[in-house]
Every structure is written in structure tokens, then in C-alpha cells.
């Protein structure tokens, strides 16, 4: 019958079936199906038969017929692994204290490393949000001032046009931008002061803003503005912001033409809430339009986008003199040399010394990277130390396992499984710790960091490191202990030799040296902060408030405001100033004095103040007198600070006539240096003059008998009456001054946190080690006790070793700490000294902590009844 049919069952289906079906069923099943096939082919058609064959094959995929997987066929292996895990679990539970120390120490170290890693990641990804990151640069300049080279990030505004017209082929875009300025933004009655930039229309494209509404090309019209998403929401809620009208600084009317996604915390433009057209600002600002030499004020920024693959250095060299060619002879003395600062350098490499880049924040990236690496290293050392210390107690287990037939490779697998298990546990714990501590960390570090849950690199590094630590930590028991002869191990004659403790001691020394350096470092950071904070300010910042003025309303009614506030008893004095106390806003190069070297170009900060300024801030006049309304001539008088007098080399400055852009001014007094910029740097030679124009700030001295908040409420009420168009804002000068230490304080806080963790981890390590030693010497202690040793003798005996280790560590680390910290302090011109007592305190502290840690174990061991310890075996 089958002979009459040409076709055969589909071979592929047959093969498939044979592959999945149990071996013993293959024959009968194939036979049945083949019979079915020919029967169907006979009755219907060959094609139907084939189809039916497949149908039958699929219907054989039933549990009873399927081949069982190899694993379940031979269950030995899995049982073995389950046993490994079970034994590991039992050991963890049996030695609860050690397990806890081990996992806590390692997960703590890992958590620190992850946190620091995330922080570094965030720092290194700074500005990478902008897609043109690789080929955007800022045009900045080196200028020669007061005999040194300074680097300015600002530029005069015609520079952009000059670069476009004379060097246009080198750039894809040249963008002029204002500084990041605060502006009052008003929509109806709602007024908010926000930071923004006035820019040429293509900046959004260069910065690749992600538009939520409108497009990047919406700044063409002067009366347009792009808002950040959060600002748009603050004003218009869920309504469509596009087309809405706003007013900037009470004088510029604009329509919202676009909304962009908020820039992330790791962007140079993170605080920028709006972008408005440069043209708008230009049209509305008289002094810019009418100034006689627009090349003079360096108040603006120029950004460029380079074509891809352009050579930044070559273009830098090309444009070097672009400004020099245009400026007047007096400014040319400054030898302004332009160059390009690539976006990748803005954040991490922002410090220049004598015109040369000397790094910047990158040093903190290194600093924390090293701390993180060290803490992690310490945690690993501990982990290995304790793991190996414990594992020696397991020689007997190894003997028994060998006796009942365990192969060496099985023992190796067992110990590796065990240590990898613990490291994996620690990794999980550390991720949890990181997640819980991130809010605190972000606050201290001033960041918005989150765990990179979706980043494969993060997981790869994390898991790779976990496995690596597990393998290293497990290698001693796995590779060495598994090789001991089972007879010796079972007899209990196996004992680690004297030499076995040496690597462990070395590890402890390394650990303590690291802790030592970290402790000294933290102390010095705080000493430096304290030192700079105690530096005499040159004025009394107590109860001093700086209130920004964005309109001239207060200036016009200055006396009325002052009288009202004084009458209400909330202030004692009040003055106007060009800049807040904590910085100076303008500098001048046009200063001349008798005996000045004509080739020298200078750059003095200048502060325009009202008559009562000195009275208000309480500065100290050392020569001559303060400004006074009683002298009509004081409108052309100046006061110099001591730094200026020293710089000019005037023997008797009071009464001297100096010139400012040719105008003669009389020096009426000299004041003690007022710290206005960095507290770590010497005060710049500064010129104070009487300014009759509206100031940028009101500086008020509050009445010390009234509480600050009450006083400010009254001040706010009065200011708002006289200056209704501006939202009232203020800052306490002492608080603003403390903010200058923000960076150092942040570092101090972080360093404290990490150092405490490092100490904690070291202590855990030494604690574990001490308990191990105490246990090993139980019998010795018993014998000594029987022979009459006192508790104190025994404590001394056991603690001595550890104290010696600490002393050795400090000897190793003192020179290193000294070297590192002198380097760090040298970054600050005004810095504290590295006293010997810092080291002594650290050493004493470390010794006390160590002995305290060890004592718990040693005293416990020494108190045991010798009868019991001698009997035990």
C-alpha cells in the first residue's frame, strides 16, 4: 500500500520530534505517525498528510512524552550547590557578629564607592546635556593687570560682530550673550525675579535646548522670549504660554514664543530661566547704545560653535589679537589675548593662573575618587582579612569533606560560592544604603543625583566588582586551605604558622594609614575654613542687609525711606552702593596716580557709594576721614583701601590727587581692607567714590534691639510702598559671606562623612581581628592567669600588638599626609599652617579609638575562668 505513494513524511518534523520526545518513545511514536501519514495520504492528499503530520507532531508536545532536561536527570550538582549555600548560611548564622561586621563593613565601603562614583559621573557629565558639547566654546581673554595676567570670561559686546565679519569662516556660529542677570519678570500682577540671558537668536540651537513648545528659532523677533518649563508653569499653569505677554524689568515688553525643558543641574546654564533676544536688551538699554567706546566694558559673553573637526587651538591662535586691534591705546596696554575655552573645560577646568589653565574642580573629582577608592579598598581588605581568619577554623570541615570524597575542585567551588554569596548580599545592601542616603548626600553636595538604574555600565561595574571581591576574598580558603591533607586537618594538628599573621598585619597597617591621612585631611579642611572665617572682614557684617534695587524708585525717595525706617526704629543707618558687600561689580583700568609706571596697566575694583556708606558698614578709617556731606567737594573725592595705597606706593596718600580717565579726584581717606571677594585671596586695591546715580543695592544696618525678622517685615512694607514694581528681596551680608565658604564647607562635610565611615570600617576590621586573636590565644591566657597574671597585664599583652600597628601606620602616613595637605593648602593664597599638633591629636585619637575597640575583646578574653579555657579542646 505505501509503495503506491511517492511522498514521505516531512523529515524536519521527524527530526524535531525525535529531539524533544523521550528516547524510549521515539520508535513507536514515529511508527504510529508514519502509519497515520500514509493512511491520510491514501484517503486525502499527500499535502494534507504532511500538514496532518505536523499537526500530530505538535500534539505530541505533552509532558508525558517530552524528554526530561539533563539537569533534572542528574540532580547531584544542584544538590551540591544547595548544600554549599546551606553551609554558608549556617556559618553566617553561627558567627553572627563576624557576619555582621563582614557584610556591614563591605556594604558600607561599597555604598561610599557608589556614592562617590555617582558624584564623579555627575561631574564628568557636566554640560553633556548640550549635544554640541564637543564643539562649543566660549571666547575668553587673558589680560595683563596690576603686573600679573588675569583671565576674564567676559568680553566687550562688539567682539561678536568682529569675529563674525573678520573670522567668520572659522566658526559655525558666533553668539553674543549677556551675563546671567537677574530680571523682574511680570505677567499681570505676578512678579518674580529670575535669572536669564539676553542672547543672539541662534543660541537655543547651539545649546540644543529641548523645546516643549515653539521651536529653537523663535528668538528672531526682538519682542520674544523663551521660558523654562518650570517658569512657564509658575506663570501660566496649565494654560498655553505661547503668545502670552510678559514684562521684563518694567521696561521691556515681550511675548512668549517658546518653552524649553528645564536645563539639568549639571549644566552651566542650570539657573537660566529665560532666554530673551539681545536686540531687545540693546534697544531698551541706553548706556549700551550711547557709550563712546563700546570696546571698553567687558560685561558680556561670546559663545561660538565650531565646525566639526575644527582645530580649537589653531582658531584660538588666529583670533588672539582680534580685540587688541580694536581697543584704545590705554586698554591695549593690557595686551588682551583672546582664546577659546571649550565647553568641556567650563566646569572642571575653570581655574587660570597667570593665563594658564591650572585645573579647577577636577581636583575634587580626583580627591573624592581617591577617597572612594581607599574606602572601598579598606572595606575589601577587612572583608578578606576576616574571611581568611574565620576560614582557618574550618580546617576540620575540609578534612571531613575530603574524607567522604569531596574533590579539591568541589572545595574550591564551595568557598568561592560562599564568599561570592556574601559579597552579593553586601552589594544589594549597599544599593539600598545608597538609595536611602541619596537625599542627604544631594543636599550636602548640592546635586540632583539618582542611582543609574537603567545604566548598564553601572550594573556591570557593580556586579563585576562584587564578583571580583568575592573571588579575591575567597581565594585564600579556596585555594590554600583546600590543599591541606585531610589526615592533618582531621587530627587538628593543622595550625596557621606565625608567618600567616604577617600579611594580615600589613593589611591592618595599610588600613590605618589611610584612615590616618583622611583624619588629618578632614581636620585641616576645617582648620582652613575656620582660619578664613576668622579673618578680619574690615567691616561689621552684623545685622547688615543688602537689598538689590532694580528700579530707581528708592533712589528718588532715599531720604524719605531712610527717615521712615529710622523713625520706626528698625534701622540705624542706610546707604546706597554699587555692589553688594560680598562682591565688587565693576573694575576700572583708567586709573592714574603720581609716580605710576606709564607702561603698567591696572585694574582696580571700584565701588560707588552714597555718603553714609562708611557709617553703615562700620569700616575703619586709618588715615584722613570718611566721606562727608559737609564737604561739598566730596563729590570728586575718593577713599582708597590699604591694599591700593600699598600698590600705588603713595607715602602720604591723603590729599594726593589721582586721575580717573583724566578726571582729577582727591584722596580724602584710607580704610582698612574690606574683604569683598574670596576670603582666601588678598584684598584687591579698591577705590571708593561718591556716586550720585542710583545704586544697585541698598545696604542697611538693622537696629540690634529689634529682631531680624520683625525688622525685615517693616523694611519690606516700606520698600514695597515706595518701589511697588519690584518684588522685595534681600540678603543678610553675614549669611552671604558664609556662602563663600560653601564649597569648602561642602567638602568638609563630605570629607567628615567619608572619614567617619573609613574609621568605622577600620574599627570593624580591627575589632574582628582582635576577637580572632583573643580566641586563638584562649589557652595562653588561661595559663597566664593560672600563673598569676592580672586582668590589666593581660589587657596590656593583647592590646600592645594593636597599638604597635597603629603607631607604625602613623609613621607611614605622616609624611604622605604632610605632602598631600601642603599641596592642598598651597591652592589658597590665604591659608592656615599645618601644625604638628594636628598629627599628635590624630595619633592620640586613633590610639584611643583602637584601644577602645580592642578592649572589648581583650577584656572579655581575659575575664574567662581559666579552668574553662584550659579544659576546652
Amino acid at each position, binding site marked *: 500500500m505505501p509503495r503506491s505513494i511517492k511522498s514521505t513524511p516531512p523529515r524536519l518534523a521527524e527530526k524535531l520530534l525525535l529531539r524533544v520526545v523521550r528516547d524510549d518513545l521515539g520508535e513507536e511514536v*514515529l511508527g504510529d505517525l508514519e*502509519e497515520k501519514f500514509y493512511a491520510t495520504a491514501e484517503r486525502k492528499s499527500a499535502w494534507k498528510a504532511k500538514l496532518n503530520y505536523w499537526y500530530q507532531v505538535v*500534539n505530541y508536545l505533552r509532558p508525558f*512524552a517530552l524528554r526530561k532536561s539533563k539537569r533534572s536527570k542528574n540532580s547531584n550538582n544542584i544538590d551540591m550547590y544547595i548544600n554549599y549555600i546551606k553551609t554558608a548560611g549556617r556559618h553566617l548564622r553561627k558567627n553572627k557578629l563576624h557576619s555582621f561586621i563582614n557584610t556591614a563593613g563591605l556594604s558600607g565601603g561599597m555604598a561610599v564607592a557608589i556614592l562617590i562614583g555617582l558624584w564623579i559621573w555627575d561631574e564628568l557629565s557636566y554640560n553633556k546635556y548640550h549635544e554640541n558639547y564637543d564643539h562649543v566654546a566660549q571666547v575668553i581673554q587673558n589680560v595683563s593687570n596690576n603686573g600679573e595676567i588675569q583671565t576674564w570670561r567676559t568680553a566687550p559686546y562688539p567682539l561678536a560682530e568682529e569675529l563674525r565679519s573678520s573670522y567668520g569662516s572659522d566658526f559655525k556660529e558666533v553668539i553674543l550673550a549677556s551675563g546671567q542677570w537677574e530680571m523682574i519678570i511680570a505677567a499681570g500682577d505676578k512678579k518674580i525675579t529670575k535669572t536669564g540671558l539676553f542672547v543672539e537668536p541662534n543660541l537655543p540651537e547651539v545649546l540644543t535646548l529641548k523645546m516643549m513648545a515653539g521651536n529653537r528659532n523663535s528668538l528672531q523677533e526682538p519682542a520674544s522670549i523663551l521660558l523654562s518649563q518650570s517658569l512657564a508653569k509658575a506663570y501660566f499653569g496649565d494654560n498655553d504660554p505661547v503668545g502670552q505677554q510678559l514684562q521684563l524689568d518694567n521696561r521691556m515688553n515681550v511675548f512668549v514664543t517658546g518653552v524649553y525643558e528645564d536645563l539639568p543641574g549639571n549644566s552651566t546654564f542650570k539657573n537660566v530661566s529665560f532666554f530673551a533676544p539681545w536686540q531687545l536688551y540693546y534697544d531698551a538699554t541706553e548706556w549700551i547704545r550711547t557709550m563712546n567706546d563700546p570696546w571698553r566694558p567687558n560685561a558680556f559673553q561670546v559663545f561660538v560653535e565650531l565646525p566639526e573637526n575644527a582645530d580649537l587651538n589653531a582658531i584660538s591662535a588666529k583670533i588672539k589679537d582680534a580685540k587688541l586691534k580694536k581697543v584704545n591705546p590705554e586698554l591695549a596696554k593690557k595686551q588682551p589675548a583672546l582664546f577659546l575655552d571649550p565647553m568641556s573645560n567650563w566646569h572642571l577646568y575653570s581655574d587660570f593662573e597667570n593665563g594658564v589653565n591650572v585645573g579647577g574642580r577636577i581636583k575634587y573629582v580626583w580627591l573624592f575618587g581617591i577617597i572612594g577608592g581607599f574606602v572601598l579598598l579598606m572595606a575589601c581588605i577587612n572583608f578578606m582579612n576576616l574571611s581568611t581568619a574565620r576560614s582557618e577554623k574550618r580546617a576540620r570541615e575540609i578534612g571531613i569533606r575530603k574524607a567522604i570524597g569531596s574533590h579539591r575542585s568541589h572545595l574550591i567551588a564551595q568557598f568561592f560560592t560562599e564568599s561570592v554569596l556574601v559579597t552579593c548580599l553586601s552589594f544589594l545592601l549597599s544599593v539600598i544604603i545608597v538609595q536611602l542616603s541619596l537625599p542627604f548626600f544631594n543636599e550636602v553636595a548640592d546635586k540632583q543625583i539618582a542611582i543609574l538604574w537603567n545604566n548598564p555600565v553601572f550594573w556591570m561595574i557593580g556586579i563585576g566588582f562584587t564578583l571580583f571581591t568575592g573571588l579575591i576574598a575567597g581565594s585564600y580558603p579556596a585555594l590554600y586551605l583546600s590543599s591541606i591533607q585531610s589526615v592533618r586537618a582531621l587530627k587538628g594538628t593543622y595550625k596557621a604558622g606565625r608567618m600567616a599573621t604577617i600579611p594580615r598585619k600589613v593589611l591592618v597597617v595599610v588600613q590605618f594609614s589611610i584612615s590616618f591621612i583622611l583624619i588629618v585631611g578632614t581636620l585641616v579642611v576645617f582648620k582652613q575654613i575656620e582660619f578664613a572665617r576668622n579673618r578680619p572682614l574690615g567691616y561689621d557684617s552684623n545685622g547688615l542687609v543688602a537689598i538689590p534695587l532694580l528700579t530707581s524708585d528708592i533712589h528718588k525717595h532715599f531720604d524719605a525711606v531712610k527717615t521712615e525706617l529710622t523713625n520706626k526704629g528698625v534701622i540705624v543707618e542706610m546707604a546706597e552702593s554699587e555692589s553688594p558687600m560680598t562682591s565688587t561689580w565693576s573694575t576700572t583700568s583708567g586709573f592714574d596716580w603720581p609716580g605710576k609706571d606709564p607702561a603698567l596697566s591696572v585694574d582696580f575694583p571700584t565701588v560707588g557709594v552714597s555718603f553714609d556708606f562708611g557709617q553703615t558698614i562700620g569700616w575703619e578709617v586709618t588715615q584722613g576721614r570718611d566721606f562727608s556731606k559737609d564737604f561739598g567737594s566730596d563729590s570728586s573725592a575718593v577713599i582708597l583701601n590699604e591694599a591700593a595705597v600699598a600698590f600705588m606706593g603713595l607715602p602720604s596718600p591723603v590729599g594726593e590727587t589721582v586721575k580717573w580717565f583724566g578726571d582729577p579726584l582727591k584722596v580724602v581717606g584710607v580704610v582698612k581692607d574690606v574683604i569683598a571677594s574670596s576670603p582666601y585671596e588678598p584684598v584687591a586695591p579698591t577705590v571708593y567714590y561718591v556716586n550720585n546715580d542710583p545704586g544697585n543695592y541698598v545696604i542697611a544696618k538693622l537696629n540690634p534691639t529689634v529682631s531680624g525678622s520683625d525688622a525685615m517685615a517693616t523694611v519690606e512694607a516700606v520698600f514695597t510702598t515706595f518701589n511697588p514694581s519690584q518684588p522685595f528681596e534681600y540678603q543678610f551680608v553675614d549669611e552671604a559671606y558664609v556662602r563663600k565658604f560653601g564649597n569648602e564647607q561642602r567638602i568638609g562635610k563630605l570629607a567628615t562623612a567619608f572619614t567617619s565611615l573609613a574609621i568605622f570600617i577600620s574599627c570593624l576590621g580591627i575589632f574582628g581581628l582582635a576577637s580572632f586573636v583573643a580566641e586563638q590565644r584562649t589557652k595562653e591566657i588561661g595559663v597566664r592567669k593560672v600563673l598569676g597574671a592580672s586582668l590589666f597585664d593581660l589587657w596590656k599583652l593583647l592590646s600592645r600588638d594593636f597599638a604597635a600597628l597603629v603607631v607604625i601606620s602613623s609613621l607611614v602616613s605622616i609624611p604622605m599626609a604632610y605632602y598631600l595637605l601642603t599641596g592642598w593648602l598651597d591652592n589658597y593664597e590665604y591659608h592656615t599652617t599645618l601644625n604638628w599638633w594636628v598629627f599628635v591629636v590624630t595619633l592620640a585619637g586613633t590610639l584611643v579609638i583602637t584601644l577602645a575597640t580592642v578592649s572589648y575583646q581583650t577584656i572579655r578574653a581575659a575575664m574567662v575562668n581559666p579552668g574553662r579555657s584550659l579544659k576546652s579542646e
Partner: protein
Amino acid sequence: MKETKLGEFEEVLLLLVGILGEEAYSFKVAEEFESQTKREVSIGAVHSTLNRLEEKGFLESEMGQATAERGGRRKRIYTITASGQRALETSRDFRVSLWSQFPAFATGKLNFG
């Protein structure tokens, strides 16, 4: 302990094995099932059930002859065991008892109106 109750499909297959006698192997049972009940069934389903019945002890099997139409492969012939027979009888008796308890059926005249 395996389930010793018979399902409907199981019962039919068990009977078919008895009917087919020497020829009771998966393919033939499936063919017979289709021709007797006019219902489609896959050989796999039949095989699976026969296998289960064997596990329950109602069937036993041994490898039989090889024939040409099955590519020279042997077939597995199933035969009913004593307990299989008992199970069938129990099942039949149970139904007969149910029938006899229903007066309308007992008369043999079904009148569903």
C-alpha cells in the same frame, strides 16, 4: 496513589483497546475512535491517555511486531488488565443502576413529549 476513577475519554479508549485486541496501539486506537465517534483526535492525545491508563494500572503494554507501512518500526500493543476490566464493569454497573432508578427509563419507554 493514582486516581482510579475513569473519565469519559478514558473509558472509551479502554473499551476500544478491548475491541481492537491484538491491534490495540496508539494509531489504531485513534483511527477507531474517530470512526466510531466521528470526533477528531490526535495520536498524541490518545497516546498520552493510554500512557496514563497504564500508569493507573488499567492497561499494560509490550512492544509488538514491526510492519513495512510504519517504516519497519515496532508498535506498542496495549491490553486491558484485570483491574482495567473491573473499572469498566464498575462504571457500567453504576450507570445501569442510575438508569434503573429513573422510572421513566426503567419502563423502556422514553417519552420526552
